């Protein structure tokens, strides 16, 4: 588990192969596309694999803040300092005229403040490396019907997850509207680090598990030649061990929570039911070549969290080959009903839910960002190159901030 171990170095080596494999895959498919382009007559009827779009992106996250779940000090609200280096890869490939696949691979390399003394032995919350493979497959069964499949997995040093889903989309009214439904599920397994007898490792090769089932329904509608809207409903049911193993809760503190007798591990109910309703409106203004997008999302769950999220985006073309984008996002949530920073004597029942995780507290979050994208080649032509950079700033009213820098490159074959 520790970053300096041989095992961790071997894992890094394996993950380094992911982009290499993608490049080989893209390169091979691209060369195939070039071959077919030599014979336009044959190209129009040929059925075969072809990469149509590829993106690479590198993100850097710099997080500062404090939360009572962290033991990283200096006070009872420990540091949540975090840096993430995140290369991401995306490929969209067409298998034939009816089947299309997209592959997304984000890799996270995380260094963080030590949120728990267990890091002296495991580094589980100090260094973390993760990779996700997400594949979406679309099968167009008729002119109006599309089946969608999603599947993949996620690997972290202490954590494994697999997921899959199935969806159906129906185009209505000559593609002026669409209706789609989908169901999906995931299954997670992880090592329950904590204060076990004799150390922080659980006895034997014990793993904890959790799973989820979800359903979504969505409708979209073109309102006029410059405007479309979308609305959706989603429900997710989770069951299993929902806690984060190294999160802790201060116990028996004084009134201003500056001194406490100790800490205990957080505890969660075994199930959680979440529901969301969301809507999006996108409008293009031809005279100024601007796009305005506004979306809203309402969230509720049986932990008594209620959240409202509003996002506004503006894209403005400044030349034919460049646009500037800006966004603002406001999010408000209430705390889970078992959130506390000071667990009292009567609340020390081992089966009673408790958490002091700052992510589950009541807060406002504000985010703004700017983005610049350049079309290196003329938009609309074959073999189009795009490059972009953006900066986002995310702040919360409960003492957390994140700066995000990103550079991306896209290629349409």
């Amino acid at each position, binding site marked *: 588990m520790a970053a300096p171990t041989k095992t961790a170095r071997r894992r890094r080596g394996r993950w380094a192969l992911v982009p290499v494999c993608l490049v080989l895959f893209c390169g091979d498919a691209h060369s195939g596309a070039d071959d077919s382009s030599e014979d336009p007559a044959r190209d129009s009827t040929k059925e075969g694999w072809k990469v149509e779009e590829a993106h690479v992106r590198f993100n850097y*996250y710099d997080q500062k803040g404090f939360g009572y779940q962290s033991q990283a000090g200096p006070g009872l609200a420990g540091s949540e300092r975090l840096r993430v280096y995140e290369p991401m890869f995306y490929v969209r490939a067409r298998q034939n005229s009816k089947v299309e696949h997209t592959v997304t691979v984000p890799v996270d390399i995380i260094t963080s403040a030590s949120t728990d003394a267990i890091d002296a032995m495991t580094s589980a919350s100090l260094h973390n490396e993760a990779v996700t493979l997400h594949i979406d497959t679309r099968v167009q069964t008729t002119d109006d019907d599309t089946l969608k499949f999603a599947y993949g997995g996620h690997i972290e040093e202490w954590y494994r*997850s697999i997921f*899959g889903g199935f969806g159906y989309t129906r185009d209505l009214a000559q593609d002026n*509207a669409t209706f789609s439904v989908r169901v999906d599920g995931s299954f997670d397994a992880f090592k329950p680090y904590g204060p076990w007898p004799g150390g922080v490792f659980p006895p034997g090769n014990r793993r904890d598990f959790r799973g989820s089932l*979800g359903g979504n329904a969505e409708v979209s509608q073109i309102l006029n*030649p410059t405007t479309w809207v979308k609305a959706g409903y989603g429900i997710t049911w989770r069951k299993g061990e929902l806690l984060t193993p190294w999160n802790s809760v201060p116990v028996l503190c004084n009134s201003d929570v500056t001194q406490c007798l100790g800490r205990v591990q957080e505890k969660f109910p075994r199930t959680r039911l979440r529901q969301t309703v969301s809507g999006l409106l996108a409008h293009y203004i031809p005279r100024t070549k601007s796009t305005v997008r506004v979306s809203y999302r309402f969230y509720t769950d049986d932990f008594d969290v209620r*959240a409202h999220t509003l996002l506004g985006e503006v894209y403005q073309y400044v030349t034919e080959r460049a646009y500037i984008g800006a966004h603002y996002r406001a999010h408000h949530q209430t705390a889970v009903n078992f959130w506390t920073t000071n667990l009292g004597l009567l609340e020390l029942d081992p089966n009673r839910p408790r958490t002091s995780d700052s*992510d589950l507290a009541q807060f406002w979050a504000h985010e703004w960002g700017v983005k610049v994208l350049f079309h290196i080649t003329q938009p609309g032509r074959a073999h189009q190159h795009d490059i972009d950079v953006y900066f986002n700033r995310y702040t919360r009213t409960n003492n957390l901030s994140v700066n995000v820098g990103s550079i991306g490159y896209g290629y349409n074959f």
Partner: protein
Amino acid sequence: MRGLFLICAAVILWSGCVRVAAYERGYLSQMTMQPVVDPLETRAANQLHRAREAAVGGVWSPAGGGCGCTN
């Protein structure tokens, strides 16, 4: 939530009469008018929020995404 549902239903019913022909959809095909403008940027934003807010769910993706910390 009920009000939002009624608004959505009204928009859908009202817009059912609208027919925009395929040749009139040039503006709708702009890159910035797509449902997802940039797939990797959207994924990164979702991951940022998923790991730091309680109000996640409703998307088919693993609970983790860098820290395995989404309950």
